[in-house]
């Protein structure tokens, strides 16, 4: 097995909420790896800590109110990002690790041309001249499939459609050929057809540039076609982690099960059985609890159809549920030890 590109261990990012209503443990002991060149999907409902996890990797958490707890560990190519000096950190940001965000509308600066915004990272990290950076910006626009890049380079973000803007965001992120691209809900704000185009583009660029991609989404349907492995997050923790095929075929954690049931699928009638065979889209009852008060025991137990006494009392660790190589599939669920309790929903 190759050495991971990014190794996240026991990441804890807490937020101090106003008025002393407690500390929000948005990310609470998350560990996972990203290997070179692979696509890792991170999935969960909003409020699960996906975005905070991704922002923590580049130390973009606003401090205060947020802070990454001591003991957390984010290793990129053998260096702990959390202890980097500001200068070293800047050399990683936008250069080795780049990021694109959910809202291409608000993530681009409205008062600069897209060309300037793309060129900026190249000027800062690769010390290109303004003219060379501009040429690079045009190349990048072409690479991400924007027509008339020579003209578009001087346009302002508001002159472009949402899909175009997200392409610009991608161009901006990839201008320095990063080794890791973190894409935080890159398609959520877009129309369905544009979504597919953007995902296709990401996939093509990943193949061309050989980078690793961390794809963060609430939609398992998005990861199905793109990710090699999937990490499922719930309540600030990793609850299940497996290769994509394995996860879709044998989900272990009831939360993953629920998420899968919420994906409209045409190709897997067996899964649609879980919706009760009535073809109705199933969604998980209840909602993600507040990060200031995670439930005791298993954090999913209030919403879990199988929960029993042990789930309420004792928090499960990540247990090995692999069918093949050990450690390839883990889940934070007592069902791994007592599979017979997985009964049909009442």
């Amino acid at each position, binding site marked *: 097995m190759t050495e991971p590109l990014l190794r996240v261990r026991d990441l804890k990012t807490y937020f101090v909420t106003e008025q002393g209503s407690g500390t929000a443990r948005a990310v609470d002991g998350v560990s996972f790896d990203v290997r070179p060149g692979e696509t890792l999907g991170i999935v969960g409902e909003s409020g699960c800590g996906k975005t905070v996890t991704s922002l923590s990797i580049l130390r973009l958490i606003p401090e205060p109110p947020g802070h990454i707890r001591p003991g957390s560990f984010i290793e990129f190519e053998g260096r702990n990002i959390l202890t980097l000096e500001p200068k070293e950190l800047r050399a990683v940001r936008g250069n080795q690790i780049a990021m694109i965000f959910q809202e291409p509308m608000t993530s681009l*600066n409205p*008062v600069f041309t897209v060309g300037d915004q793309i060129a900026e990272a190249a000027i800062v990290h690769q010390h290109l001249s303004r003219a060379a950076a501009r040429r690079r910006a045009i190349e990048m626009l072409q690479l991400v499939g924007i027509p008339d890049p020579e003209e578009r380079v001087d346009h302002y973000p508001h002159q472009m459609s949402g899909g175009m803007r997200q392409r610009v965001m991608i161009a901006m992120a990839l201008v320095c050929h990063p080794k890791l691209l973190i894409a935080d809900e890159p398609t959520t704000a877009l129309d369905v057809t544009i979504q597919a185009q953007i995902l296709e583009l990401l996939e093509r660029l990943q193949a061309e540039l050989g980078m690793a991609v961390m794809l963060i989404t609430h939609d398992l349907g998005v990861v199905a076609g793109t990710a090699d492995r999937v990490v499922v997050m719930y309540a600030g923790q990793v609850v299940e982690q497996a290769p994509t095929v394995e996860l879709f075929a044998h989900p272990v954690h009831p939360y993953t099960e629920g998420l899968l049931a919420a994906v409209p699928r045409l190709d897997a009638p067996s899964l649609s059985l879980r919706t009760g065979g009535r073809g109705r889209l199933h969604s998980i009852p209840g909602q993600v609890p507040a990060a200031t008060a995670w439930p005791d025991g298993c954090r999913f137990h209030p919403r879990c159809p199988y929960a029993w006494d042990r789930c309420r009392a004792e928090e499960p660790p990540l247990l090995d549920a692999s069918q093949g190589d050990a450690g390839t599939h883990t889940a934070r669920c007592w069902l791994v030890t007592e599979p017979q309790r997985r009964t049909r929903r009442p």
Partner: protein
Amino acid sequence: MIAWVVRRVAASVAIIWAVVTLTFFVIHAARGSPFLPEQSQSVSPETLDRLRRQFGLDRSLPEQYVLYLRNLARGELGESFVLRRPVADALADAMPHTFFLALAALLIDFTAGLALGIYQAVRERSVGDVVLGNVALFVNSMPTFWLGLVLLLGFAQWLHWFPTGGPSDPVLCPRVDSLPCLLDFFWHLTLPALTLGLVGAAGTARFQRAAMLEVIRQEYVRTARAKGLREGRVLLVHALRNALLPFITLVGLAFPFLLTGAVLVETVYSWPGMGLLAVRAILQRDYYVVTGAALVTSAMVVLGSLMADLLYAVADPRIRVRGA
């Protein structure tokens, strides 16, 4: 774009005309007449009549108004009764003083105000932010003329660092025509400009802090950080460029503030600018100086907001394109 400018200019002219007209009728309706100041009651009725005829005050008010407008169209602002000279000359003497006062005050206002506001926003909720915030709130709440009095008391009366008033030393520098006299002028300018500038800066700082805070939370600022830019560049290029857009509106609003402040500050420091001229003219019922001052002040206010709008259109690409 051009059509828009033409419309705005036309509207501005109409506004100024309305202000002048209102002022004209109100000040003519005011009690007392320019030739009967309380101190010189010895004027004989014959002289008074002659003077009234000479200045056309014996005609009916509408007639006088039409006459005034006709003269105005030719660029003549009339004659001051009290100063016995053309109003245009009196204004031309006073305006540079107010202009330099306002310019110096604006300089203090904007540099100090912007710097403080940005500093406070970047260090939100730090001790420095809280202390500066409260100081700014207090200074912003002071009556301008009272701050003038306090500064006058402290720096002129007690410390003797600055002169107590006037635009220049009347003996050594009756007019500003040499380098020492220029320095003397600046020396005289310091306290009045500081008075106006500090109150303005406090307001600007409060405004800019809020604008900057709003912008710092925007996602494009995070994008800029994610690119690996220096914090200085993130804040001063990516954030500030956006946070300066609302500030432009403030620039337009600064004109009325400065003019209002000038009326009082010029009185405190015997600064012979527009404000002092206007106040004296109102008290002495010097009709055409009053209307002339109304013309100039309203023109400056209207021009200020027009300039702010134009500046905004230039600075904000979103508006620029829409207007083109």
